[in-house]
């Protein structure tokens, strides 16, 4: 299951490049390191979870520095990478506060971003040869 490329530590610059790819596209870091099964599961599960949050009329929080909790939520949202950027570009994630599923949607979006951050950390460890 583990590809030979993933078993040896990568050069420092490559490690950060792999982490950037892992952030940009969920699962891309694992796919790059030859862990195809994990990469595909992350790609499907995290993208679906994020999409589900948008479908539930959750909101992509803006970076409003006057409201620290909103900024924290925005940072968590940003953890999704390309799906977040694409949703922003297409005007999705406006959020409808009166929707009964609004808070559920926010939870799905925020947690998907946070889980992708964990996935990036896992990629970092693998690329460094620690796992």
């Amino acid at each position, binding site marked *: *299951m583990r590809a030979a490329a993933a078993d040896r530590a990568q050069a420092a610059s490559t490690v950060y490049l792999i982490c950037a790819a892992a952030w940009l596209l969920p699962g891309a870091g694992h796919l790059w390191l030859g862990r195809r099964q994990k990469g595909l599961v992350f790609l499907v*599960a995290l993208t679906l979870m994020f999409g589900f949050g948008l479908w539930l009329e959750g909101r992509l929080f803006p970076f409003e520095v006057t409201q620290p909790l909103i900024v924290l939520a925005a940072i968590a949202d940003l953890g999704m990478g390309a799906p977040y950027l694409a949703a922003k570009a297409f005007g999705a994630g406006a959020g409808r506060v009166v929707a009964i599923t609004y808070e559920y949607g926010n*939870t799905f979006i925020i*947690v998907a971003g946070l889980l992708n951050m964990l996935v990036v950390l896992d990629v970092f460890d693998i690329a460094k040869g620690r796992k």
Partner: protein
Amino acid sequence: MTSHLGLMVIFAAFVSVVFAVLSRDEPRDQMVLGARMFGGFVFAGVLIGWLLYPLPF
């Protein structure tokens, strides 16, 4: 589908899958851990829901 319980089950499924795949390398181990976590999340959610039920607010 959009009931509280339904959404909690879907949320638990997503989180269990990601945690299990992150924590284990072998597919069989991932399935076992994922199923355990999923069951634990749903059970804890229902249990905490019932514990909160008598509260007046």
